[in-house]
């Protein structure tokens, strides 16, 4: 949208592009990352059961029960909600890079690559900090 001047057109229409475009996307990332994490967890469980069942037949019910036997709230919810922070990081970096894009189609490619690299880096850094905080507050 930046290189085709659509963001400039939004601004020229006296609409705040950060509120219209960035805020909505960042909020969407914050909400969706935990949900995606849950979906990924569910896929992981199912495929883990499939792998187990190929070696030694075991019902899904038994698999889940034995897998979650020692697990509690602290093992599940805080790590899932930390992905909301990841969503904030990804949304902020992607929107920032998008709003600053210049240089035509090549610039869009560069902005996308920068977004992925910077998001990955900051998610890893944030994860280190968040894991420490989770262990501290949810021992």
């Amino acid at each position, binding site marked *: 949208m930046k290189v*085709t001047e659509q963001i*400039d057109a939004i601004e020229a229409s006296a609409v705040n592009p950060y509120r219209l475009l960035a805020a909505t996307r960042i909020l969407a990332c914050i909400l969706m990352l935990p949900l995606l994490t849950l979906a990924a967890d569910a896929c992981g469980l199912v495929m883990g059961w499939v792998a187990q069942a190929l070696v030694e037949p075991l019902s899904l019910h038994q698999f889940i029960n034995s897998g979650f036997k020692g697990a509690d709230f602290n093992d599940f919810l805080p790590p899932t909600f930390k992905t909301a922070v990841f969503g904030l990081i990804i949304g902020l970096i992607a929107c920032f890079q998008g709003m600053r894009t210049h240089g035509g189609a090549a610039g869009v490619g560069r902005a996308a690559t920068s977004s992925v690299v910077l998001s990955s880096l900051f998610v890893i850094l944030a994860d280190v900090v968040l894991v420490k905080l989770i262990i501290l507050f949810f021992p």
Partner: protein
Amino acid sequence: MTQEAAEEDGSVPVVTVEDVHKSFGSQKVLNGISLSVRRGETLAVLGRSGTGKSVLLRLIIGLQKPDSGSVRIHRQDIAGLALDQLGEIRKKMGFLFQHAALYDSLTVEQNVAFPLQHHNKEMSKSEQADRVKKLLAEVGMEGDLEKMPSDISGGMQKRVGLARALALEPNILLLDEPTAGLDPISSGEIDDLVLKLQEEHHMASIVVTHDLHSAKTIADRLALLNQGKVVIEGNFEQLQESDIEFVREFLKHS
């Protein structure tokens, strides 16, 4: 006489650019440019490619800030304004981008309705729809409401862009190369449309173009830029009578 009345009858300018300088890195684009436009008047800004004509329009709408000098809209210097304050001024301005800059995920109708949906909240949906249809009818696009920008030609996109620029009934209209990339017939149609809209809406219009024929057709005054300055300003006859070398060269090749 109030300021609004003075601007309405054209006795004071609504847009004043005074000694504006703008550089990008080491490249000086505007080097002390000054001009003004009144209601009911169309000023064409001409010049070679890369002489800062589009930058001038972007400074007037506030998409960029000048390095020095002032840009006054309705006598208010816009350089120091916050985004929300600038928004209030922009509601009275319409901008047609060089490539129309239509929102590619919205239909033609939704594109034109965009400013109305965000600023005319007291209008009901049916009133907004009627206003959109009227605007598109003014530009000859009333039959293409449901089309996407990618489904229509460049000339049609410019017409839709014009309709969107007029949505909030602006009293200042900025047009960036309205006929660029169009065939002569489509260019002529856009020129006729701009003339008709100017007659009906009595706006202060600034048209940036390198198309001298188009400028002669639609403008009351022409300003020729060279090296970031206004070399000459006046009607076409005054440009023709000028003995400035650059002006003669520009007219010769246009």
